[in-house]
């Protein structure tokens, strides 16, 4: 039962991170469109945001699920063997999970698959989405694991 709940919380943290990353990613790409002198009205922005949530679901969600799984396992091991505040470990795990995964992919494939993460600022925002996922996981598993 405890494992099932932990699993559900993990899925929730993946969904949270995915939605945030997708929404942030769309806004970064639309900011680029604005820089070309093309107006992006609110209706188009909303439409593009929903389009990307659907479009990214089969790819980015899996990438995030893998990244957070590894990160949370590492965080759990650190808590167990190194001690310290578990919330801090999960925040750190969430924050670093996506940049580490995207950099690994770039080192293997030579390109950045998630366009929003091509700049330092974009990568920071995506890292913060992972941090939110880490917070959700740590917060909702606090009583049972902590």
């Amino acid at each position, binding site marked *: 039962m405890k494992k099932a709940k932990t699993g559900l919380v993990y899925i929730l943290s993946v969904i949270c991170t995915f939605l945030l990353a997708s929404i942030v990613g*769309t806004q970064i790409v639309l900011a680029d*469109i604005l820089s*070309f002198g093309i107006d992006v009205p609110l209706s188009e922005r909303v439409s*593009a945001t929903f389009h*990307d949530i*659907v479009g990214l679901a089969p790819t*980015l969600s899996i990438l995030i699920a893998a990244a957070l799984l590894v990160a949370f396992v590492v965080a759990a091991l650190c808590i167990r063997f190194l001690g310290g505040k578990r919330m801090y470990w999960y925040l750190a795990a969430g924050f670093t999970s996506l940049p580490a995964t995207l950099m690994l992919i770039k080192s293997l494939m030579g390109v950045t698959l998630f*366009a929003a993460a091509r700049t330092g600022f974009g990568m920071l925002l995506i890292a913060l989405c992972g941090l939110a996922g880490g917070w959700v996981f740590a917060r909702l598993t606090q009583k049972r694991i902590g």
Partner: protein
Amino acid sequence: MIKMLKVCLLVFLASSAYATEYKIETLVDGLSYPWAMAFLPDGDMLVTERSGQLRRISDGKLQAEPIANIPALYVAGQGGLLDIILDPGFETNHRVFISFSIGTKSANATRVISARLEGNKLEDISTIFTASPGKDTPHHFGARLALMPDQTLLITVGEGFDYREQAQFLDNHFGKLIRINKDGSVPSDNPFIGLEGVLPEIWSYGHRNAQGLLISADGTVWLHEHGPRGGDELNRILPGKNYGWPAITHGVDYSGAYVSPYVEAEGMEQPVTYWVPSIAPAGFCEYTGNQFPDWQGNLFVAALAEKSVHRLVMENGKVKSQQTLFTELEQRIREVRAGPDGFLYLLTDSDEGKILRVSPAN
């Protein structure tokens, strides 16, 4: 004599409107990712291998020794030894133009040299163009070459994949079509001459990764370029025009997200045609030979992902109809060229790449 290495394929096309019998023979095999070919006046052929060798084919046989003095290359991803074209005065000056990638993993770029082919080596080599700035991706080099009727040289430069927005800005070479003189200088009638902060060698912009460039018999400049997921484009190029990438596109990113929600915008050109899903267009030629009368004036587009060649029947600058050819080969086609003998030549994209010759069945 041509060495027959594969059983000829006799094909009767299903559509009576397009009925053309042809056979396909393997002229040469054992090539390492062949990328481009050029036909020499003496009947020999030159073929670039992306892995870094320039090979000569004499009497239908691949010569064992590669052409010597190829400059240092950056061979990775889509980079390596890429296009080659002959100077129209090759018979007397032996001059060739070759494109390739140079640099390192963290700083690489597209470069073009001019050289004389003397026997089995390049001499008098001079760099006439290097794309700037460098990039840290091994993809999207562009690197197709074509000579205009006025003897200026056109060069495609890709946007480097991770640098797509730069295709919209004129202070760099990413996603541009470049026009220079054969000595590397900038023609005085280029469209952006004298504009502050703009590179004067730019001829057109807003391109992604153009792997096909053609000056047709009527002088029209045609360019095709890879889209992302969908949105491969055939464009008719006019100087100074913006072809839209990545502000407008009919494709979406590989991740599934928008590159742009727009397919058109003011001041940006529309493609003559586009392909969704992507066919991954590579080589490009216009057929002007006499072996296939039905194909006269048609444009041929090699397709990597679709493993085919598209035959485009043009009318008044538009695509009247398309026919998908050579799918029976089940090979990624990197290049399609009409030979001086009127046959069609194909390069297959593989570490066991081939030169295939398409001739009438009878």
